[in-house]
């Protein structure tokens, strides 16, 4: 059996095993075990991948496997990975482990909760390894409904509204992707037949008129997933209503599906349209970056703060892709990984605080550093990563995006880069203000002194994510060497095709 198919099989088996377990404790243990096995599998894949590359395997996608699914329509189960997908898989595996660990205290409908979490991760893994657009779309949609149920059943606040809004907006996004997909399909011709295969389509010459129609559909469709302005409105409500683990999955994994789709499908397959429309993408993402940052300034709820800052941070992903230089795209991928880890950690820490204080309002918190030092340290570290402190992953990723963006010539692009850079100041303001007000100063509420600090599961969850953040922050060249050959390939493809016409 193919190496990559295990990445789908393990979550599937975990989900089924969780369903047949009897007690809540068994369900948790099985889910955690499944997540760890999957993490091990992801790391094993990383080593095998590196070994293959060192052995001189120059193929664009490694570990490819094709099985006919619906041959009449040219639909195959076709998987394969390059460095970019591998980075996303590692990110997913880390966030899943952490997400399951922080959910240890779930008491209502435990079985359903862990089943849905695992199903959500299954969708993400499948999405990242798919090389067939139909399969990719299938997995993209698999990941939508678990979110609806997770938020609606276990969420807080106006959860039903948020769940419905999220499901409908994401579904509208995937409907746009679907239209683009069908149009792309009918514009391909591989010896007389149409194809959904990503690698085959990339060798086709999709006419520029078709690209002008398909590209916006695809880019906006995937953009909805990654909270592209003005389609970001599901994100703050969804994130803040979701239970902790669902927020972590949503911001850490699910938003990355969109960024990955924008890069791998929209930009890679339709380079000319990407080039033509890049000014629109840059404009929208710059707005998202700045608007997200200023909107965060106005929030009082910790989860809303992180949710709006996610809009801003995911703006960098789109911004990097829209700039169409190799460094910027590398930066965008790094930002996806970095933001995924950082935001999961942030939401995890907020969840731990909320579990104890039962409030997330900044004004009602205060002095927590004295009572729950471990959780607060994690919280502050996540915040510092978010504002781009050197030594943590956020700095590396955003720096790369800016450097790459500056390489793109033109006053407009430079102006956009300067504006995007300037948003970092705002980020610093809101992060420092929020963390300062909630963790420093005198203890506001006598109840706070009774809190117990992090339990084993919470410590482990934080450690898993922190390791990722620190590794990227201190040794960015590892991640860089993993993804930059593939972003270079994408870039070569882009310049070749755009120059051709």
């Amino acid at each position: 059996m193919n190496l990559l198919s295990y990445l789908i099989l393990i979550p599937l088996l975990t989900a089924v095993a969780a369903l047949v377990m009897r007690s809540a404790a068994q369900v948790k243990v099985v889910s955690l075990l499944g997540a760890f096995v999957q993490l091990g599998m992801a790391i094993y894949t990383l080593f095998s991948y590196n070994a293959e590359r060192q052995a001189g395997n120059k193929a664009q996608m490694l570990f490819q496997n094709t099985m006919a699914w619906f041959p009449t329509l040219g639909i195959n189960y076709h998987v394969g990975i390059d460095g970019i997908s591998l980075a996303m898989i590692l990110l997913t595996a880390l966030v899943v482990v952490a997400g399951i660990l922080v959910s240890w205290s779930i008491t209502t409908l435990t079985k359903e909760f862990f089943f849905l979490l695992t199903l959500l991760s299954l969708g993400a893994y499948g999405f990242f390894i798919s090389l067939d657009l139909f399969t990719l779309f299938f997995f993209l949609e698999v990941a939508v409904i678990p979110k609806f149920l997770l938020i609606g059943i276990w969420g807080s606040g106006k959860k039903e509204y948020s769940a419905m809004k999220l499901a409908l907006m994401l579904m509208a996004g995937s409907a746009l992707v679907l239209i683009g997909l069908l149009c792309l399909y009918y514009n391909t011709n591989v010896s007389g037949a149409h194809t959904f295969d990503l690698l085959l389509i990339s060798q086709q010459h999709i006419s520029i008129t078709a690209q002008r129609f398909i590209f916006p559909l695809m880019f906006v469709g995937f953009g909805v997933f990654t909270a592209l302005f003005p389609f970001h409105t599901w994100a703050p409500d969804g994130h803040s209503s979701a239970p902790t683990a669902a927020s972590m999955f949503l911001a850490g994994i699910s938003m990355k599906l969109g960024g990955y789709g924008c890069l791998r499908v929209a930009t890679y397959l339709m380079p000319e349209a990407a080039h033509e429309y890049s000014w629109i993408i840059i404009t929208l993402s710059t707005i998202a970056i700045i608007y997200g940052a200023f909107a965060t300034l106005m929030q009082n709820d910790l989860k809303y703060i992180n949710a709006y800052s996610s809009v801003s941070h995911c703006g960098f992903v789109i911004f990097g892709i829209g700039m169409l230089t190799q460094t910027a795209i590398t930066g965008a991928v790094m930002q996806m990984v970095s933001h995924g880890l950082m935001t999961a950690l942030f939401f995890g820490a907020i969840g731990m605080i909320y579990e104890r204080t039962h409030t997330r309002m900044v004004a009602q918190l205060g002095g927590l550093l004295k009572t729950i030092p471990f959780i607060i340290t994690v919280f502050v570290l996540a915040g510092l990563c978010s504002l781009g402190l050197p030594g943590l992953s956020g700095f590396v990723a955003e720096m790369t995006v800016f450097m790459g963006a500056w390489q793109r010539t033109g006053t407009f692009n430079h102006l956009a880069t300067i504006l995007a850079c300037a948003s970092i100041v705002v980020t610093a303001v809101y992060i420092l203000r929020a963390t300062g007000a909630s963790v420093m100063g005198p203890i506001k509420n006598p109840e706070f002194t009774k809190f117990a600090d992090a339990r084993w599961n919470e410590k482990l969850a934080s450690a898993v994510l922190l390791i990722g953040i620190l590794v990227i922050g201190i040794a960015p060249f590892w991640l860089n060497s993993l993804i930059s050959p593939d972003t270079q390939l994408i870039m070569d493809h882009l310049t070749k095709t755009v120059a051709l016409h």
Partner: protein
Amino acid sequence: MGIDLFMYMRSEMSLTAIIFILLAFKIFSNDEKPVVQMALVNILLLANLVLGLWATGDATLFNGMYQTNATLVLQKTVLNIGTLLVSLMAFDWLKNHKHLLEFYILLLTTLLGMDFMISSGNFLMFFLGLELSSIPLAAMVNLDLEKRKSAEGAMKMILSSAFASAITLFGISILYGTTGTLNFTQMKPLITGSELQLLAFIFIFVGFAFKLSSVPFHLWTADVYEGAPVPVTSYLSVISKGAIVFIFITVLYNLFASLQSTWTNMLYLSIVLTITVGNLFAMRQNNLKRFLAFSSIAQVGYILLGISSGSALGISSAIFFLLVYTFSNLGAFGVIAVVSAHTGKEAISDYKGFYATNPWLSWVLTICLFSLAGIPPTAGFFGKMFLLTAGAAKGNWALIIIAAMNMVISLYYYLRVVRAIFMEKNEQPIAPVKGSNTLKLALAICVVGVVVLGFAGNLFQHINTIIAK
């Protein structure tokens, strides 16, 4: 010839045999327990289904009156599966019903009519089958004799049905006037698209649109669905509709092939109206049966979208979708049927907090609704994808955009039900419902079908090979 005739017409023959067995049963020994009677019927239906799987060659019988081929046999199999499931699900409702055998006799008569209609090679046979399948249906709608709504529904059904039949018949008579024949094969080369023939075609199209309840000929649907007993509603919405779709495909693709550009445009108009209006009305319903009535109207729009492609893929995707739709819609109706039979509750607001009391039924209903909404990994996703892929072949992107965006609207109302089941609080939720084992079996088949069919790539491939012949 003798034995061959039986083999070619085995579907019709076996149904007729079953009807006579039941009649004899009714006359000679009516004091058997209902459980025994139903077990007998279900075994006979299963035998009928298995017999239908037998592969035989193509044939045209009785001077072109009756035709059969692998595609038609496949279509009949889909209907047989659906009928068996309806029969299993009707158990909880029928076991206390004094007209049990009458229900089955009427049910099987309509199925017989549908089989003849699908196999018809002549307008006379077609019309015979159509009437045989619609008049007993009205009686079935009225089977809850004491309910006024049932009677109202039956009345609406028979009137609109008669109206639709009359229009179809008018169209057929004009066609006969212009071509001098009723035989499909003889008539086909004579269809030139003259004005009179176009008028006739429009009449026939409208007749079909009535039966399919596609907008603007859908007005009877909701009232009939609401009035009828739930098993009858499910039969109406799945099997009866499926049969009409199948013969519609034959008539359009075969007989009216020369008018393709005309019917493609008519279908486009019909699709846009059907999907949009069906969805918009479904959003506002509170009665689950009415809700599913409008949702099934919208689903028909998607089937028509696949058919509008005019290609072999259109046929295969429509058949595949109907198979999936059979499982998903019957699964949803099965849950509603058992809840309605035990508690009499049918409103969406009654289902608030349903998950706390009936977790299994909740999951069945949810999975089936997701399949209807086209959410992966359920089979409904694949069904919708294939229909859209087939429909997109013509490159009519405005239509595809409308259809795809309507999928989002439909998701809203399906999720409304899911939200009520899982998320909303209720002071008096529906008490735990204990369905019979027969019903549980039927629901299990539906769920397995909904979950597995999408991954069975071979099945879709098989359907394609049969149609390509």
